[in-house]
Every structure is written in structure tokens, then in C-alpha cells.
């Protein structure tokens, strides 16, 4: 058994492998790893495309002609235009590639803003409780009940007055997505805060007389936000869908200001009935692929964070050491005890019952 003398110090994992995502990647096995890797690859390609769009795209997103003249509208895929041209005479491939830039910009602004607002509100609301909490919960439930796309439409009109240049359009989209997401972040962070508030280490800080702000920021905040990478990925995909939805119903970004997939789909709507498939297929596939990639990452992270869902590889007999201590295996992101502890529960007396915690 463990004693002060005979315990060998477990090797501290390097900083690199403790980074989120990297850590999970190492932790994953089998199909789960496959899904995570696939997601990471797609997401990586998406991010790289966004960064290098100016280099990758054969033309500008608002380019209508080159030296040899106008592209022409609705040209089928050809050597010059691999994906054809749109009804407006843009190169589809270029707009799909540039669209990644817009998408990522909106995702980052939207998710950062909503995380910030949602975290602050959720933390304060969950930690202090009381009437403020109740009001915020009812308000956020109400906002949540509102179809998000409609809210986004109204918000985008309110925010930018319906202007759709790059900054106005992107910001309007991002902020309206933010407003839609705040309730979600709020719920998650609040629930985590309420849970963590009842954890022994928070109670212990309270017993010590630590101030509320110290408890909130030193103990609750960092632990409550551990699931954020997860929410981030899940909401990033929703941000893309909402952006595309906005573009589709006609509140998108002006085509000479930025390339945006939903907008292009909207424009391609009338092409489909004439059998012109290339103007809609590629931007649509771009949306599906990116959402697929990000969601794969998000779901894999979710699985890995949940010991019930995490898969482990089978091992060959006789490998490894015999478990000798009750050290909880797993890294910092593991939500609960995993491994052997799940099987060999300690002799705990869960003194739940009537010994309630307020």
C-alpha cells in the first residue's frame, strides 16, 4: 500500500501532451481516435484554407473577369473554373475557398463574445443564486425558446441596420449569433458552477473565509470552464449553420465584401431548377464538411471527457503493472474517476441520504 516512503512519483506528462485536444488525441483509441483524427484533419484543412485562401483561390472572391475577359455567368465546370461560375459570374471554387475565411472570422468573433458574456453571467448567476439567478434563468430559457435563426435575423437588422459590408455584415452575423448562444453558455456554465459550488474544495475555501471573488475566480471559474473546448467546437458548428442560414434568408454579407457560403446557396436556389448543380453543390458541401469536421472533434472530446463513453483499447495479457494504489488515473480533463476505480469502488459510505447540502 501507499506510504510516504514507497510511492514512486508518477512521471509528469510533458506540457505538450497536457494541452487540450493533444491530450485527448493521445488518450483516444480505435474508432474514437479515427473519428477525432478525421475531425481534426477536416478542421485543420478548413483553418488552413481560411488562412491561405488568398494563395489557394485562383481568383478573388469578387473577381468577375481576368485578362481574357469576363468569366460569364453560370459557366459549367471547366479548366479555367474547376467548379464553374455563379449566376453573378463569380468563380465558384474561389468563393468556396474564400468563404472559409468569412466562416472562421464569424466563428471566432461569435464564440469569443458569447463565451465571454455567457461565462460571466453563468458564473455570477450560478454562484450567487437568489433572485438574480432566477431572473436570468427564466430570461435565458425564454431566449432559448425562441427559434435561433429568427432571433438572429432580427438582431442582425437591429445591430447593423441591415448593412452588409464586410465589417457590418460579419459583425452583425457574429453578434446576432452571440445573442443566440449566450443562453447556452450561460446554462452550461451556470450548471457547472452550481455543481462545483457544492464540491468539497469550494466548501473548504469557504470554511477558510476566502472571499467570494477569490472563490469564484480561483476555484470555480477555471473548473467550470473545463468543458469549454467542447462547447466551443459544438457551437462553432452551430455558428456556421446560423451564418449560412442568415445568408440563405437574405441577411448575408454583400458578395463584393466577402464570400459567404449561405449567401451563395441563396443565389444558387434558382439555378437548381434549371439543372445547374455546381453553384449550390460546392458551397453546400463546404458547409457540411466543416460542420462535420468540427462536430466530429467536439463529439470525440465529449466522449473522451465522459468516462462512460470513452473507449479503451484491449490489452494483451500480462502486460503492465498490477494496480497498487488508488491513484486516479487520467489527466486533468477527466470528468470523473475512470479506469479501475469504476470497478473496484472504494469502501465509501456515501452519506447522502438526509445529510443534504444546501
Amino acid at each position: 500500500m501507499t506510504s510516504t516512503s514507497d510511492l514512486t512519483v508518477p512521471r509528469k506528462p510533458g506540457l505538450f501532451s497536457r494541452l487540450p485536444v493533444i491530450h485527448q488525441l493521445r488518450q483516444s483509441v480505435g474508432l474514437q481516435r479515427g473519428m477525432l483524427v478525421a475531425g481534426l484533419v477536416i478542421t485543420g484543412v478548413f483553418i488552413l484554407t481560411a488562412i491561405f485562401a488568398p494563395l489557394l483561390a485562383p481568383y478573388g472572391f469578387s473577381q468577375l473577369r481576368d485578362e481574357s475577359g469576363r468569366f460569364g455567368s453560370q459557366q459549367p465546370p471547366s479548366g479555367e473554373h474547376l467548379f464553374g461560375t455563379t449566376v453573378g459570374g463569380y468563380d465558384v471554387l474561389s468563393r468556396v475557398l474564400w468563404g472559409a475565411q468569412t466562416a472562421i472570422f464569424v466563428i471566432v468573433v461569435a464564440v469569443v463574445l458569447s463565451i465571454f458574456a455567457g461565462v460571466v453571467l453563468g458564473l455570477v448567476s450560478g454562484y450567487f443564486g437568489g433572485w438574480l439567478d432566477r431572473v436570468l434563468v427564466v430570461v435565458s430559457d425564454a431566449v432559448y425558446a425562441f427559434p435561433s435563426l429568427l432571433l438572429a435575423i432580427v438582431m442582425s437588422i437591429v445591430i447593423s441596420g441591415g448593412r452588409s459590408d464586410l465589417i457590418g455584415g460579419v459583425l452583425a452575423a457574429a453578434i446576432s449569433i452571440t445573442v443566440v448562444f449566450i443562453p447556452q453558455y450561460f446554462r452550461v456554465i451556470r450548471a457547472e458552477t452550481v455543481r462545483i459550488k457544492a464540491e468539497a474544495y469550494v466548501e473548504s475555501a469557504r470554511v477558510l473565509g476566502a472571499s467570494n471573488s477569490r472563490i469564484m475566480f480561483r476555484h470555480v471559474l477555471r473548473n467550470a470552464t473545463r468543458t469549454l473546448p467542447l462547447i466551443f467546437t459544438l457551437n462553432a458548428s452551430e455558428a456556421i449553420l446560423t451564418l449560412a442560414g442568415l445568408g440563405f434568408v437574405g441577411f448575408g454579407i454583400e458578395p463584393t465584401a466577402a464570400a459567404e457560403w449561405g449567401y451563395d446557396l441563396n443565389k444558387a436556389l434558382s439555378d437548381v431548377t434549371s439543372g445547374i448543380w455546381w453553384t449550390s453543390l460546392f458551397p453546400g458541401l463546404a458547409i457540411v464538411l466543416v460542420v462535420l469536421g468540427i462536430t466530429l472533434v467536439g463529439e470525440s472530446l465529449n466522449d473522451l471527457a465522459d468516462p462512460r463513453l470513452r473507449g479503451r483499447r484491449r490489452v494483451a495479457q500480462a502486460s503492465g503493472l498490477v494496480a497498487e494504489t488508488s491513484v486516479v488515473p487520467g489527466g486533468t480533463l477527466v470528468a470523473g474517476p475512470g479506469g479501475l476505480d469504476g470497478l473496484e469502488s472504494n469502501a465509501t459510505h456515501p452519506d447522502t441520504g438526509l445529510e443534504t447540502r444546501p
Partner: protein
Amino acid sequence: MTSASTNRKRALAASAAFAAAALVLAGCSAGGSTGGDTKAGGPITIGTTDKVTTLDPAGSYDNGSFSVQNQVFPFLMNTPYGSPDVEPDIATKAEFTAPTEYTVTLKPGLKWANGNDLTSSDVKFSFDRQLKIAADNGPSSLLYNLASTAAPDDTTVVFTLKAANDQIFPQILSSPAGPIVDEESFSADALTPDDDIVEANAFAGQYVITSYDFNNLIGYKANKDYEGLLGAAETDVVRVKYYTEASNLKLDVQEGNIDVAFRSLSATDIEDLRGNDKVKVVDGPGGEIRYITFNFDTQPFGAKTADADPAKALAVRQAVANLVDREEIADQVYKGTYTPLFSFVPEGLTGATESLKGLYGDGEGAPDADKAKAVLEDAGVTTPVELNLQYNPDHYGPGSADEYALVKDQLEASGLFSVKLQSTEWVQYAKDRTTDAYPAYQLGWFPDYSDADNYLTPFFLEGGFLKNHYNNQEVNDLILKQGVTADPEERAKLIEEIQDKVAADLSTVPLLQGAQVAVTGKDVAGVEDTLDASFKFRYAALSKG
């Protein structure tokens, strides 16, 4: 709310029963005509993406509603098939009996479809209530010159006008402010709900409405009692299906689910359908125009800018006029559903010119970059000129974005302009444009009545709706003069003169004129007859063989 509405539904359904039964019968007898003396072919189904706001003429001022009103309400003045000019419709004569008195004599013994008498009292009622209700979205503002209406006897109506000899007033009587309504069915001081109108069968146009499923399906039946200018309907039963998505409309007309698709298929669809031998595409002149408006205060070198200079400002406008390639826009963006417009009054209307064709570009309608460069150089304008160009993406159809992207490209290709393009959602756009927020911006116009005046007075007369600070006294005088010139030829001359003058000033740069394009099944005839410069699509002209 449930019971009230189901009751209404029930009543509706009951009134629909007759028509639909007839319909079913008609269908069974394979297009055979069903009694009566109407020259009826098989029922025709028309599809449209127009939207009705309300049937009540006092409450709507939009295309979709007006096109329904045109079928079912009588007018004092109307345009016959194939002409833009108005003639008495349910009246026998209409004339100025005094400078400010316009007297209309109704045909005797007119009836509403519900049996009520259609008398001058109904006419007085109709115009009085327009002015009285002055609904938020109503067309009452068109009756700006009407002081009062009197009905001295059953067939005589006397309009007292504010300004004398108003040659426009007969046109107004054919405009959205002109439908006559049944005083026994309509409320005098409030808008009447659509379902009440249908239930009361308060119609006296070429058709009556037999079933009314708001913005989804309207059933029409020919009105045997109609005795007006346009004659009896070719087809007894017409159904109009309302679409929200043009592509669905296209699919349905292509598949023969509907017989006629009118307003508004996308350019792509129309081009596609032109190559489809199951349908025919019919084009007609359109009254809709598209143009760029310049704000004389805030455009480059405008009156309120730091480097104000009227000459340079004019040069900028002229350069734009020299550079835009209307043909290219019409081809690439609109695939021929819009045609180049070289004046302020669209082709087809009496007095229309092509004033800009000779003045700008190569004289043949094509752009001329050298000329633009010369104009700017002569005025001492340093290039590239920075131009903020605004357009609206949702009010003038889905082509706007592509249209303006192309305009930007055309202007910039010359190296003379650097264009910053911006689009704004409609409500904000409509506000901003009148508050000098936009130096140059897109607008469009659909006429209230098919007269050149409707393309001049609201635009270029001082205090018009453009609010772009254009003011040319000469033009003002001419516009006022043509309005009171009774002689058609003299008036046409004046109208041409106005166009030439404005073309030199370039208050706006006209770009395109919308064509009316209808797509029909091979067996549908008569569309050509109604796609005329009256811009009123009349179902009565259609027949299915």
C-alpha cells in the same frame, strides 16, 4: 378565435363549392365548356410569386394586390388591350366639363356580382373612403389633386380637382387608387377584411373571386355581368396559385402543373425555359425601371462636400453614364428579362425617348471609357474617383447584388473609379436614402399608371420623392406644363424635351427596363394580348385550347 375563423372558412368553402363543383365537372368533360355564353376554355391555373397584402383597394399599394384588384373591380378609366393610354371602362364618357371639374358618365344598369346596383354613388363612396381612410399602406396619396367627388345622379360622377386641367387625372382613375367598390359591402371608414369582401361577392370586374385562400390559392370565375371596356373573359375559371419561391414556380410550369407563370421567374429559369419545348416564353414591354440616383449634395464634388464643384460633380455623373454597359448587365445578370434603358420614360409609353443613347457612351448604347476619361479630365477631376455606391438586396429582386457587382466592375475596369459597394436591408435603406446618407444609390420604380408623367413628376419635379437635391427650374416648368397640356402630340413633345434636359443633368442614370415575361404551356393562348404597356396582366385574355 377558433369559431369565428372556422365560420368564415365554412362560408368561404360554401361559396367556393359552386365554382369548384363546376371545376370538377369541367375537368370530367375534358375541357368541354360548361354552359353560359362565355367563350370558356378549360380552367387555367396561373402561378405567381406576387404577394397580396389586402383585397381592399384602400389598404394596398403594391403590385400583387393591384393585379388581383384589376381582375375583379371595375375602373372608370382603363387601358384597352395593347395600349398604354386610358379610355372609359365602365363609363360611356369622361371629360373635363370645367377646368377643375372632371365628369364621368357611367353606363346605365350596371350591377355588382352580388346583385347590388353599381351606381355613381358607389364611385363617390370609393373615392371618399380612399381619402377618408388614408390607410398606412394605401394609395390615397395618388389622389393628391382630388378635392371632392359628387354624384348628381345615378350615372354621373363629378370630380372636383384642386389644380385645373390635370391631364394626369384620367390616368389616376386607372391606378391603384381607382378601383370602384360596393358601398353596401365595404366599410366607409375602415379597411374591409378580405374574407368579408369575398363573402359579399362585391365584385364587378371581368372576374369574381369564388374561393380565397390568402396568398395560397385564389379561384376566379368569369363575371357575366361585366360590361366594360375589356369585354368578356376568354376563360371561365381561373385559379391563381401563390408561390414564395420562384424556383418552385418554375418547376411547376415546366411540369405542366400550372398553365401560366407570371411574375417573377428568375432570369436563369426563364433562360432555361426558353430552351424547353413544352412551354413557351412570352415577352412584353415592362413598366418597371432600374436606375442609379445621385445625391447632388453628397456625391463626389456635391454641394455639401468639402470640395464642392457642380461642374466636376456633373462630370462624375457623366463619366458613370459613359461607363455603364447596360447590355452586359441585361445579358449576364438578367438574361434578357430586363432590357437596356436609355431614358427616364420606358420604351412603349407615349413620349418615350432614348435621350442618353446619343449623349453618352459610343452613341450606340455601348460604353466608352475614353469619353468618360475625357469628361473627367476636362472637368479637372483627379482619378480614380472614389464612389460609394449603395444598393438594396431584398426589395428589387435577387439580381440587384449581381447587377451592382457588375456596375462596380464596369466602373472600376476603366481605372477611373474606385467603387465602394454596400448593401442595406430595405427599411433602413428607404430611410437612409432620404437623409443624404447615400451619395449614389440604386432605386427602382413600378408605375402607378402607364403614363410618362408617372416617370417624371415624382422624380424630377422639385420636392419629388427622390430627395436628391436636384432642382432645375426649366425642368420643373416643363413638367408642370405637360400635366395640363390637353393636346396629346404637344404633350408628347414636352415630355421628350424634359427627358433630354434631365439626360443632360443626370439626376439619375437609368439602367434597365424590366420586360414582362410570362411562361405558359403550349396550349395557352392570349398572353401576348395582355403583356402590354398598360402593365396590367389580365387573366381574361388567356385561354387554353
